[in-house]
């Protein structure tokens, strides 16, 4: 342990650790471009200068080891003058086109300049012009003019994905970022460079010009793209006179699960929240009134009772699955979670997993049958199959089932005349819930975006039948879920702040 004094305040740090890490960990504002916790230091931007007593010149915090008794100043006119000069150099060839830059509002260069900028330009020679809006591939747009050459993107493709697509070419102030001639940026994690880039040099082609970032409201969720269950920020906004729309997913730092990154597939999976949504209820292929369809489905379940099979999706949350199991017990129906959503080509050794559902573990841990053989057995003598969170009717058709079908899903699908009843439910970001990932991390997805779209939450629907006033996750936990053996050391409030691993036999 070392004690260092920063701006007159004592903080404790690990001896020999990197100064910038300790400063950032203590919420001390320290401007930096090239340093990133996932990529380490590079020492090229000089933005992280601090004054250290006993040293003649300011030092870069990202390459200074902590030693006991250090006295550091991060504020004051001396160090501000240094920062101002560095920023002036950064801006010599910068186009200053914030009005048309998607990064504006979350740009480090903008923020630092607002703090200690020079404001009056002293430049009277023309600026170096490089290439603007260049498509790098993988949905990444490069604006070479805006680049501060911090090489974060280069180091990401070098150290993290090891695909080496990006590099710095040409010397001195003509340097720019580029791919090799004729090649494109292409790897399943490429869009992370957009978040890594501290300025607007790398922006998303997908998000391009859709919203200004200061209108977006971030919400925290778990990605449902595969069984890794990465932590994400869901950025959404409700424009005046319009419905709420999800505009993008961004990685949320989670030490246990995904670190600082997510995959491009997961990042772009926000689209299913807006597009191709089931907007109406249908009864025998005819559009029906929403409330009527819900009551009708309730009646169907009561009519078929023990002749019912609930075919549930591993995309549902732990709370929903637990309540569905309760429903099956109450009406003496069968419940099954068989689902074939595996893709061997999807999984890799970084984040992506071949199991493309977020919550298969919960089905297993709640002892719900989920094999094809079980399904074959359970479907015998059944007259009604209710699909919940899924619409893959061929699964039971292949088993020669010819009774009634009910579907509760958020996705629009083609053969809406086949089921007796179709009811739209809220999508992943519309309801909160718990998910258990491939490694047994129990995680809470708190994002609950309210939409105008007609749709019902599964917990609300089940409450109509079970009639016990349990509609929120808290109540599901206290009504018995917390007594499940695999959750014995965990409470809902614990997983709200961090992912917790459970032992899985």
């Amino acid at each position: 342990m070392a004690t260092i004094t920063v701006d007159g305040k004592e903080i404790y740090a690990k001896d020999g650790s990197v100064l910038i890490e300790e400063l950032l960990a203590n919420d001390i504002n320290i401007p930096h471009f090239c340093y990133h916790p996932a990529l380490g230091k590079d020492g090229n931007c000089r933005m992280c200068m601090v004054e250290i007593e006993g040293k003649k010149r300011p030092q870069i915090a990202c390459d200074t080891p902590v030693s006991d008794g250090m006295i550091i100043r991060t504020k004051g006119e001396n160090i501000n003058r240094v920062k101002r000069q560095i920023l002036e150099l950064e801006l010599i060839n910068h186009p200053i086109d914030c009005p048309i830059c998607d990064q504006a509002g979350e740009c480090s260069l903008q923020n630092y300049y607002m703090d200690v900028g020079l404001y009056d330009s002293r430049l009277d020679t023309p600026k170096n012009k490089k290439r603007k809006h260049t498509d790098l591939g993988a949905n990444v747009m490069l604006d070479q003019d805006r680049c501060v050459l911090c090489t974060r993107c280069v180091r990401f493709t070098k150290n993290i994905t090891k695909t080496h697509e990006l590099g710095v070419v040409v010397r001195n102030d003509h340097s720019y970022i580029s791919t090799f001639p004729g090649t494109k940026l292409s790897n399943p994690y490429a869009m992370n460079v957009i978040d890594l880039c501290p300025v607007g040099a790398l922006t998303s082609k997908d998000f391009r010009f859709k919203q200004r970032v200061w209108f977006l409201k971030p919400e925290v969720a778990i990605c449902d793209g595969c069984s890794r269950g990465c932590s994400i920020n869901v950025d959404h906004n409700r424009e005046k006179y319009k419905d709420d729309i999800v505009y993008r997913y961004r990685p949320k730092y989670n030490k246990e699960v995904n670190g600082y990154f997510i995959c491009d597939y997961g990042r772009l999976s926000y689209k299913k929240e807006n597009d191709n949504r089931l907007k109406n209820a249908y009864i025998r292929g005819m559009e029906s009134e929403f409330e009527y369809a819900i009551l009708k489905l309730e009646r169907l379940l009561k009519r078929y009772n023990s002749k019912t099979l609930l075919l549930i999706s591993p995309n549902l949350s732990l709370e929903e699955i637990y309540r569905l199991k309760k429903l099956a017990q109450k009406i003496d129906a069968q419940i099954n979670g068989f689902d074939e959503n595996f893709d061997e080509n999807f999984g890799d050794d970084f984040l992506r997993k071949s199991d493309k559902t977020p919550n298969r573990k919960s089905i297993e841990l709640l002892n719900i049958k989920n094999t094809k053989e079980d399904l074959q057995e359970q479907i015998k003598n059944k007259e009604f199959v209710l699909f919940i969170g899924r619409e893959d009717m061929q699964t039971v058709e292949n088993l020669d089932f010819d009774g009634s079908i009910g579907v509760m899903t958020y996705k629009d699908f083609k053969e809406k005349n086949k089921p007796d009843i179709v009811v739209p439910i809220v999508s992943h970001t519309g309801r909160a819930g718990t998910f258990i990932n491939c490694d047994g991390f129990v995680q809470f997805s708190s994002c609950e975006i309210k939409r105008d779209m007609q749709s019902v939450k599964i917990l609300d629907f089940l409450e109509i039948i079970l009639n016990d006033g349990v509609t929120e996750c808290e109540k599901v936990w206290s009504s018995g879920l917390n007594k499940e053996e695999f959750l014995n050391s965990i409470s809902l409030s614990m997983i709200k702040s961090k992912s917790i691993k459970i032992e899985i036999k």
Partner: protein
Amino acid sequence: MGIKIVPRYGNTLKDKLYLPAIFGGMKTTISHFTKNLRDTTNIKTQCYPEVGPIDITDRYRGVHRLTHREDDSVRCVACFMCSTACPAECIFIEATQRKDGVDEKMPKKFEIDLLECVFCGGCVEACPCDAIRMDTGIFTFIAQKREDFVLNKEQLLANKSLGEEK
């Protein structure tokens, strides 16, 4: 903060009788009436709306317009500064990629709802590109339906500044 004591008038007997003041007022009215009757050329009122005002100043905030570049294309770059600043939230913009090489970004849709607008001029102040102005001098707008008060991009671009029209 100091308190300013305002003197109150109207407590004298003469004021309380009212009639002296009424006759005083009638005297002024009748003197103007006879003066104007003798010379109709110098009347200060206007026959609005047949005759419009001629004394609209340059600073008058009328209906908005979108300005043009030197090559006559739209100047606005759809940065959303105006709609961010707008207290009435009555500016509706949709941005798109600009393809003619002049710039990167431009508005696909740019609408102002005049019924919601409070004519504060915040949008003009906020614009970093001098792309929106309220110098048209248009102070009256009439329409049949609510929707017709929502000006679209083409209408805003077609509005001229008062100076240009003179």
